[in-house]
Structure formats: C-alpha cells, structure tokens
C-alpha cells in the first residue's frame, strides 16, 4: 500500500462567494473504484470539479497520484478522463469526429486519435453508430459517447459523474458492466459519483459519503462486507439452552431473540462448521443460517442520520 494514493484530500475546502461548499475534507482514497455518494447538494460534483481544476480550493490541498491539483494541474489533466453529468458535446460533429477531437486535445497525434476513437466507440457499443451526428443520438447513446470521450486517451483515473442518469435498465446494466470491465482491467482507477446506491454497490470497492459538504463516511466496502460475514442469524429446532452455552463457550457473543432464533457474532478463530458440530452434539437442528450484512443502503442511511462526520 506504499506510495501516493489515488486521491489525497488534506483539509480541502471550497467556497463559492461566501458560501462554503466543501468543508475541510480529509482522506486518502486508494481503491480501484471509488464511489462518491451523497444527497443532492452534498458537494459531490463540486469535489470532482475541484479535483479537475475547475474550482480553486479556498483552503487545504488535494493531490491526485501525488501531484498537487493547484501546481501540477496540466500533469494531472493528462492522466484523467471525465464524463460530465450534463449533456456536453460539440455541435455539428459525427460521433467519431467528436471522440477523435477530444483525443487530440488530450495530446494524441491525429492518426492515433482516430484509431483510438474507433476503438473506444466499439468498446462502448457505438461502433455501428459512430458516423452518425451526435445531435441525432438518444439519451442512452449520448451517455455512451460521453464515456467514449472520457476513456479515448486511456487515462489512469476516470471521473464518472452520474453515468447511468436517464438510462433504461438494460442500458444501465451495460454501462455498469463497462465500468466494471474498466475496473477489472487494472489499467485505470474510477471515481463514480451517483445517487443510485445500487450502481455504486455493483462497481465500487471504496465509498465516500458526503453530506452538506462534509465527508461523513469513508469505508472500504469489501472490508465492511468481510466484517459483516461474522454476524449470523440462526433458525433452530430443539433445546437451545445447552447449545447457546456451548456456543458462548467458544467465545462467541450469542443472543436468543425468540424461541427458535438466535444471533451469533463469530470470533476470528471460530468457523461455521464449529456451530454445526455443536448443533449435532446437542441435538439441535439448524434449519436456516443467514449472514446479516449491512447493505450500502444501511451505511448510507446511518451516515445521513449521524449528521456531520
């Protein structure tokens, strides 16, 4: 885990006029796919724009791959791709012309830009429509074209701002699959900003939750899930008294919630097979065993309830 993180926030604050939008954000994000969550107006897009150099920080600093966003903006911009939330195009251009133009602006020579534009459009699934004018595209196709321009120059970090906005379920699935493909390729890190918890849950390993411009939750979803695997709900038949005592004897916390149900928090060294062994020993039937895990929704709602971080 040595070396600089993908994004480092060091007391980052952004103010528009006198209104603080981002307040003292701190953290080191290292994940392959980082989810940026928060209610409307929480500051997600402002954070992305600040990292892109669109808004100057009013205090603090931020670094991307170890480079300061204020002093090394050009170096950073050559490493990133950005898919904006709103419709953003250049009028009167065919899709392939548009993506090629964007690649050239990123520094690719003309021939390489054209080649990469074709490849990017095939990758996002617009291969057949690449010579059509952007004005004739549907909303879903425009989203794909925006993704193509964000990845055409092969960036190391891709900011996706609400990539599934306005997509129907199959199109959303395709978009999520592409994001996962990029993540799994190991060639780029992704920052995905979304209102849709499911999108983030399906794509991201790390999440950052913002509320009122403050970072209220930062967690690694994988670790969170692993931690939650230790929490079990059992539905049983038979005399529980001795069984519960035996389970407690293993060092596990145990609580009987009704006649036949109990909650168990396993210790590090305890395995589920130990529970089955004890159940056999004390003639208790285990009819159902479920992992209780906090969903992202639980984490998000808790963050919203807890207020400022």
């Amino acid at each position, binding site marked *: 885990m040595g070396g600089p993180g993908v994004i480092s926030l060091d007391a980052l604050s952004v103010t*528009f*006029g006198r209104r603080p939008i981002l307040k003292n954000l701190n953290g080191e994000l290292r994940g392959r796919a980082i989810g940026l969550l928060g209610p409307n107006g929480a500051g997600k897009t402002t954070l992305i*724009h600040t990292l*892109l*150099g*669109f*808004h100057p920080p009013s205090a603090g600093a931020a670094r991307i791959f170890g480079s300061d966003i204020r002093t090394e903006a*050009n*170096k950073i*911009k*050559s490493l*990133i*791709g*950005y898919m*904006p939330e*709103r*419709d*953003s*195009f*250049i*009028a*009167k*251009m065919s899709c392939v*012309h548009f993506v090629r*133009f*964007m690649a*050239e*602006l*990123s*520094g*690719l*020579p003309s021939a*390489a830009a054209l080649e*990469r534009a*074709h*490849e*990017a459009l*095939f*990758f996002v699934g617009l*291969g057949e429509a690449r010579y059509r004018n952007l004005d004739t595209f549907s909303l879903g196709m425009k989203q794909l074209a925006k993704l193509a*321009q964000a*990845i055409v*120059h*092969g*960036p*190391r970090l891709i900011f996706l701002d609400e990539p599934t906005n306005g997509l129907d379920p199959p199109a959303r699935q395709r978009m999520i699959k592409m994001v996962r*493909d*990029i993540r799994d*390729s190991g*060639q*780029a890190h992704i920052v995905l900003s979304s209102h849709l918890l499911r999108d983030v849950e399906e794509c991201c390993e790390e999440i950052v939750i913002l509320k009122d411009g403050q970072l209220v939750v930062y967690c690694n979803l994988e670790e969170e899930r692993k931690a939650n695997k230790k929490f079990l709900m059992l539905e049983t038949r038979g005399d529980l008294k001795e069984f519960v005592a035996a389970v407690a004897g293993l060092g596990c916390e145990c609580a009987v919630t009704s006649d036949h149900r109990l909650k168990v928090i396993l210790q590090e060294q305890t395995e589920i097979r130990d529970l089955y062994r004890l159940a056999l020993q004390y003639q208790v039937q285990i009819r159902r065993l479920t992992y209780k895990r906090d969903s992202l929704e639980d984490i998000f709602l808790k963050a919203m309830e807890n207020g400022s971080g």
Partner: protein
Amino acid sequence: MAVLERSYKRYQGALSPEWSRFLIIPRHAYRDVFRSKLFTAFFALSFIWPLVCAILIYLHHNVNALGIMKLNVADVLPIDAFFFQVFVEVQGTIGFFLAMLVGPQQVSRDLTNNALPLYLCRPFSRSEYVVGKMSIVIILLSTITWVPGLVLFLLQSYLEGWSWFSANSWIASAIFLGSLVWIVLLALLTQAISAWVKWRVAARAALLAVFFIPTAFAEIINQIFETRWGQIIDLRALIGNVWAGLFGSFVRQAASQVQESRNGRVVREALFSAPPLWASWFMLFLICALCLWLLSRKVKAYEVVK
C-alpha cells in the same frame, strides 16, 4: 482497446507537442466552415482583388502589354505605399465580412452545448482555448490579407529590383502589422460577442452594430462638442488612422469654425483637431483588453451562479 478485443487499454504512445495543441481547434473548425458552399465561394472571391493588384503590378512593368492595351505607364496606378494601403483596406473590409460569417458561432456553440468542461478537463487551458478559437479567424483572414499582400510586395520587388525593395521594405512591415492589428481586433471582437450572444444571427448583427453605430455617435459627439475627438469611439476611424499611420499617410486633421456677426465682426472662433495617432492605437488596445476581459468572464468550465 483494440476494436476486436474490446477491452480497456491505456495509451502508451507519443504525445503531440503541447504548444501546438491550440491549432487542433481551427483544423477541425475549417471542416465545418468549408462545408458551406456559399462561404467557400465567398472565400474564393476574396482573392479577386489580390489578383487584380498582381495584374496591375505586372502591367506596370510590362511595356509590351501596355502597348497592346494602348496605355502609358503614367496611366497605370503607381505602385507605392498608397497602393498597398488601398490593398490592405479592401482586403480588410472583405475580411470583416468573412469574420462575420465564421466568428460568431465559435464560442457560443460550445457554451450552448456545455462543451467547455470537455476542453478544460484535458491538458488544455482557457487561454489555449481562446487562442485556438481566435486562430480560426486569424488564420483564415491572414490568407486573404497580409499573406497575399506580402506576395504582391515581393512580386513588385522582383520586378522593380533590389533598390526598390531596400528603399520600401517598411511597406512590408506596414502590410503585415496593419493586417495583423485588424485581424486580431476582429478575432477578439467576434469571439467576445460569440461568448455573450448565443444566437448566431444576433451575434452577427451585434458585430455590425459595433462597427457602424459608434460611427453615428462619433459624428453626434463631434457636432455637439465641436470637436473631432468623437473618432476615438469609431472603430472604423481608429483602424483607418492606424493604417494611415503605418503607411505614412496619417495627417492629423484640424479645422476651424468662425461665427461672424452681420457687421462682419468675429463673434466666436473655434479650433478643433482630430485625436493624435497614439490615441487610436491606445483605443484599439483598450478595446482588445475589454474583449479579453469579456472572454475571461465567459470561458469557464462551469459558471458559478450567485
């Protein structure tokens, strides 16, 4: 990210030099500009005057041709600074109309389609964007103003000889500088108007208004205040003065107005003179600075709404 593989792959190849990236904008813009047959025809017609001038220079040095046409050398226009000044003025006027056709939609289209974040999230600065957009007009107008102007100058030098060239080389710099000032002014004005007026037709009308309405106001000021300083708000007069200054024909106009009573006594005598040449340069500089300020207010990735 090969087409067949359809997998994400980073780009590892060479990059284009950073200084040259602003030229990507005009290169792609000309595709769209020359798609219009009307514009292409107008652009081609704008080379007629340079052609006429080239013929005049040729005739000036070809006694046989003059003989066939039964003309005397004295009947043909003299090829001097005034000849090239007229050339720059005619081509400058044509350039104004070309800029009016090409310029007004350049920035407004990007603003309407929220394209600026796409430019500015790349290693491409706001100033590169502005220079790139300006260079659409600058390159286009260069091809009809100072480039053919210098070609004509070289043609005349070739036909007249080294002594003419060495004695009149300042004309070449006047052609270049005079055209460049005009082109940069037009480029800045069209882009500034384009940034603030999103409707193309209105932007074109605004550009016309910028050049013609102040002329009327200038005349009103001159009449009311009995002065000639009204010229400093008249763009056409300003650039005319600058061209005259560069080609050595600038004369600071002065006039007097005398009011006499019935018995012939002078009741009132007013003396007024036109602004000096430096005032015209200074005003053009101020207008360019104002255009840059207007552009800097609009050319942003996102506008923060107060």
